[in-house]
């Protein structure tokens, strides 16, 4: 069983004909094109108007489409998302920005009690085509409440899709898909990748797989690193470093946490026989627990070792000067790989890649 490999674009190097574009700029292009394509699309949030958002993701949109289409709202997240519900009831397609991960929590009741349930409650009568953009994760030196990995809360809420891009083409393609979706999408933007660049042509954005599909970012035979969002570059770097140890690691980028692409993940782990799940979110009751359980259920007879997790510690997010001790890094990923019971010599994952 083979899966097409979709490597992430290295900084401007993949295609010299295309100019380097940041992930944040790709998101901006997606919003601009969505606003231009569909008059029902409305952007609303805090500082998204003339300022262009604190991360400049909405830069220039108010100027181009008017402040009614890209609107600064009062500073109240439940009001923002609650208003978006009413707008969706009237046929609009709202895209709301939560300024930071931890500032999205006031909107949680609207998300859980209404956005996620309205289609189900009304037997399909009131679908909620709402995109909730949330900058998330650490690694940018943010002070308290600016670095949370909040994905587990959203994943535990039935009725919403949870999507997170890690590459420039995905930033554009997944955001367009999220806005086009008739279901609500929590769109998690990895803050520390906002400034990562790739050669990419806004005039001809390359098609990417839709919501619900994972991508193999690096093929390998020894073990599979299952990851997403901010941890993808860490895993790719770890995979390069692992070559020195004789491990040929495959890296799967989930792209979509809900729906979860079990087929791509299971196919990879069945090929390699070993798996490590890597994410920033705290490990206890985090996404990795669910992923490890599903991999075990689907791949038990192919596994040479327990599925391991490399996650953030089960602590409130640390202050900037200590965050490097919290975030999964290359060494921590390699330490986990080293614990994948390589002593069982006959395993398919080690036949050609012994230490």
């Amino acid at each position, binding site marked *: 069983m083979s899966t097409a490999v979709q490597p992430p674009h290295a900084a401007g190097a993949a295609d010299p004909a295309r100019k380097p574009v940041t992930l944040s700029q790709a998101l901006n292009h997606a919003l601009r094109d969505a606003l231009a394509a569909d008059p029902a699309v*409305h952007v609303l949030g805090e500082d998204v108007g003339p300022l262009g958002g604190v991360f400049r993701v909405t830069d220039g949109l108010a100027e181009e489409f008017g402040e*009614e289409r890209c609107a600064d*709202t*009062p500073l*109240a997240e*439940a*009001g923002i*998302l*609650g*208003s*978006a*519900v*009413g*707008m*969706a*009831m*009237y*046929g*609009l397609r*709202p895209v709301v920005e939560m300024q930071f991960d931890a500032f999205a929590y*006031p909107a949680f*009741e*609207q998300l859980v*009690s*209404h956005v996620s*349930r*309205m*289609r*189900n*409650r*009304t*037997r*399909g*009568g*009131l*679908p909620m085509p709402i995109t909730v953009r949330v900058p998330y994760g650490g690694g940018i030196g943010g002070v308290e409440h600016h670095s949370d990995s909040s994905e587990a809360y959203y994943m535990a809420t*039935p*009725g919403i*899709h949870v999507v997170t891009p890690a590459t420039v083409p995905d930033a554009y393609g997944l955001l367009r898909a999220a806005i086009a*979706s*008739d*279901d609500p999408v929590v769109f998690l933007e990895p803050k520390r990748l906002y400034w990562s660049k790739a050669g990419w042509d806004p005039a001809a954005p390359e098609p990417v797989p839709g919501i*619900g599909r994972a991508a193999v970012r690096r093929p390998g035979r020894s073990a599979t690193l299952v990851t997403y969002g901010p941890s993808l570059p860490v895993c790719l770097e770890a995979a390069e470093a692992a070559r020195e140890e004789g491990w040929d690691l495959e890296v799967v980028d989930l792209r979509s946490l*809900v*729906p*979860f692409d*079990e*087929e791509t993940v299971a196919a990879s782990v069945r090929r390699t026989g070993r798996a490590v799940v890597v994410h920033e979110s705290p490990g206890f009751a985090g996404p990795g627990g669910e992923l490890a359980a599903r991999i075990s259920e689907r791949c038990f007879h192919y596994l040479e070792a327990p599925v391991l997790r490399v996650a953030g510690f089960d602590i409130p997010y640390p202050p900037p000067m200590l965050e490097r001790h919290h975030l999964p890094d290359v060494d921590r990923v390699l330490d986990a790989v080293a614990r994948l019971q390589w002593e069982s010599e006959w395993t398919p994952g080690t036949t050609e890649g012994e230490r």
Partner: protein
Amino acid sequence: MTVLEQHGAYAPTPPPSWRPRTAPAPLLPDAEPHRVLGVERADGGPAPDGGLLLRLYESMVRGRRYNEQATALTKQGRLAVYPSSTGQEACQVAAALALREDDWLFPSYRDTLAAVARGLDPVQVLSLLRGDWHHGYDTRATRVAPLCTPLATQLPHAVGLARAAQLRGDEVAALALVGDGGTSEGDFHEALNFAAVWHAPVVVLVQNNGFAISVPLAKQTAAPSLAHKAVGYGMPGRLVDGNDAAAVHGVLTDALDRARRGDGPTLVEAVTYRLEAHTNADDATRYRTEAEIAAWRAHDPIALLEDELRQRELLDDAEAERVASAAERQAAELRERMNQDPEPDPMELFGHVFGERTPQLRAQAEQLRAELTAESAHAAPGDAHRGAHGGREAR
């Protein structure tokens, strides 16, 4: 002399952000609740339209009978729970009748009567409380939002819908209903603030029935009145006797006209009383006295309206009898229809979670289908409840 004492020394341009942009006085509610029924029209103004009063009366008589019937249905196990609006019929009916066809109503769980008075099928409206599904009517066709259970969370929806209508240039207003307890919720504040900033065509009607389950208003707020809260947002607040159907209808009609004209939102506080307990599961004797209830029964909204109608010779015994029989027939029909066993389809649990099922939901639906098949294979012949699935299932 300190800097603060240097009068006139500080004159920034543009004006400083503390300067109020809205004059507060015109926004203030009346000191006493606005009343129409039984009030001498000293100003010589026109009496309320007789036809309107008769429509309000008939709908309120039906409404009270509907409330009684719904409460009775809880005792027969036909409704899981029923929050009665007995005593609040003037608010419920006036809200429904003040709306134009294109307007939207955003009810809470206590406002099923408002939806029924707007013409919705009571069996569909009671779906949530019957428990066969969370919701039972076509929101877009009826322009009635789902009954909202989490307090005040429907208010931002009303504001957002009104804003969307405003952006599209439609002459549509939204009317949202909330109780006195709901005014303490954050969403009440956020919704009113958004409504005022956006100048949205929305009216929020607070039915102040005195209690949030058991907690009296004095423990809920220290505001001069709930209507006064409007001033803080820069919108007018109106205080009205919530048992005076003509007054409530008049105030809401004015506020909705104002909204549709583009003159912005209004907060209306209607002072009323919940004559029954919070729900059939509540024991109101633990937190209020018979004397208090008796005092409010003496200010009954239906009696108040009936007195006016009889004084103006718009209603006689024969007409009152006709209205009462119509209410009785409606209640009997509701009783009969609610005594049918609904047959909710278990497979529908997976039908509307998303537009398209995820692989995980497909697997879980198959699991449930297999369980149901096994169950129906073991079911006794003639057991209609089992194996009755496959009807309403969506994709």
